[in-house]
């Protein structure tokens, strides 16, 4: 496998392009700050960026955790019992098609301005990918394995714990990656409207005060956190699903 350092190349290219465009002065610096100015913003505004990032991250962690505790057990049950699947299928398909952002007005009416509406929206954004992937994970279990367990007279509890759960785990992790991604998108948007803190709020506020370097700094932080979160989930998945090593054609 080629070294991961290659992944930095496009980012470096983008940085060089940005610097070149700044030098050529195609756009006024009020619109497009130079990389140096953004770097300076990181240093001077460090406490502010840190505080807002922490606020956003906390909301996503709370929202996604709640969604995980709700959606994974529910998905295991729906995947296992056909009656629940029939009961839930249409509802899932309807509600997952509603963008969480479109619920912001409703969330504001019910919960006012603050953490609550943001967390509720993240919860909704994270629930669907977790639920759908968990159901899919349970479904894709090899039928022979269930037969082996039934022939051995395993209890339903043991089948859930030793067979259905581990076999659904890779799919649950796929769901978790999507959920964190969706939660992160939602938090930034929600913070622009429904909360008075967080990276979304910081960016919007920077726009109102013409501080474009702070906007770009915010965007960089949002992207960086997204990357770190995704890498973290991947690493966790590799640990938990160690048995999968070498089973799939290539590490995802």
């Amino acid at each position, binding site marked *: 496998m080629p070294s991961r350092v290659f992944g930095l190349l496009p980012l470096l290219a983008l940085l060089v392009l940005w610097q070149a465009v700044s030098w050529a002065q195609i756009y006024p610096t009020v619109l497009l700050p130079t990389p140096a100015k953004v770097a300076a913003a990181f240093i001077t505004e460090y406490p502010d960026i840190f505080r807002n990032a922490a606020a956003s991250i906390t909301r996503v962690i709370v929202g996604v955790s709640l969604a995980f505790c709700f959606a994974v057990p529910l998905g295991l049950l729906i995947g296992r019992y056909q009656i629940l699947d029939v009961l839930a299928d249409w509802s899932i398909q309807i509600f997952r098609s509603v963008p969480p952002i479109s619920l912001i007005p409703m969330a504001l009416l019910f919960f006012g301005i603050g953490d609550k509406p943001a967390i509720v929206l993240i919860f909704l954004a994270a629930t669907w990918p977790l639920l759908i992937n968990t159901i899919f994970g349970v479904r894709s279990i*090899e039928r*022979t*394995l269930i*037969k*082996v*367990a*039934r*022939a*051995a*007279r*395993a*209890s339903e509890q*043991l089948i859930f714990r*030793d*067979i259905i759960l*581990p*076999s659904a*785990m890779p799919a649950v992790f796929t769901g978790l990656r999507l959920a964190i991604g969706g939660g992160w998108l939602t938090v930034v948007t929600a913070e622009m409207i429904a909360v008075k803190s967080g990276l979304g709020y910081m960016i919007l506020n920077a726009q109102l005060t013409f501080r474009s370097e702070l906007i770009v700094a915010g965007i960089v932080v949002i992207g960086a956190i997204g990357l770190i979160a995704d890498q973290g989930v991947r690493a966790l998945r590799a640990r938990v*699903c160690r*048995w*999968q090593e*070498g*089973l799939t054609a290539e590490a995802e």
Partner: protein
Amino acid sequence: MQFVECRGVGKIYASKAGPVEALRGIDLAASEGEFVCLLGLSGCGKSTLLQLIAGLEAPTAGSIRVGGIELDGPSDETSIVFQDHGLFPWMTVERNVEFNMKARNAPSDARAVRAAELLTMMGLTGVATRYPHELSGGMRQRVGIARALTTRPRALLMDEPFGALDAQTRGRLQEELLQIWEHQRTTVLFVTHSIDEAVFLADRIAVFSPQPGRITGTVPIELPRPRDPETPRFTALKKELRRMLVPDLHGAALS
């Protein structure tokens, strides 16, 4: 004494195209310690019958008794081995072998002792902590057999267990299976579509025909073991079975 006994067993599946009769009027018995092969072409219901005997599905007609007791779900007296081995990919070999005992709530130290015994017997001690996908097909099926034997079943149900293996591995596992069988004296019901395999292994062969799946004949194999496939008697039995298996073809050849 008949240990496994099927009387008038039928199985009809509902499908979108209407009911499908998979089995009709099956009468089959295996006495204690007997090695019975269920021989037939694909789609003749032999695997379906094995699943019924394993208690995984219920027959739609007739009755099945194992150890004199009418089946109502899987019996404690049987263990099943599948062609695609059915090993849990997230469990090590050791954990896989322990699973059937765990399902019956055996305490963990007893499980470990028994698993170690079977791993030694099947020559798997060196791979106890490996995952199934790290093993060859033959090794995987050894794990499957070890797992099935842990609960000391009085009948071993085997659904084309060596069907996916190469010829050499298959031959070796057949011999190992006979050794185990001679040692443990369990009843074995062994599904196969290979005439050679059936003649090599069985005390008695039940020949299946399709549409609907039924038994068209039973052939006792009275050759001494170990059997040599090169002998004239072996060959003659194969010929007879081939004729029973595909009568149309034979009829066409005669006319």
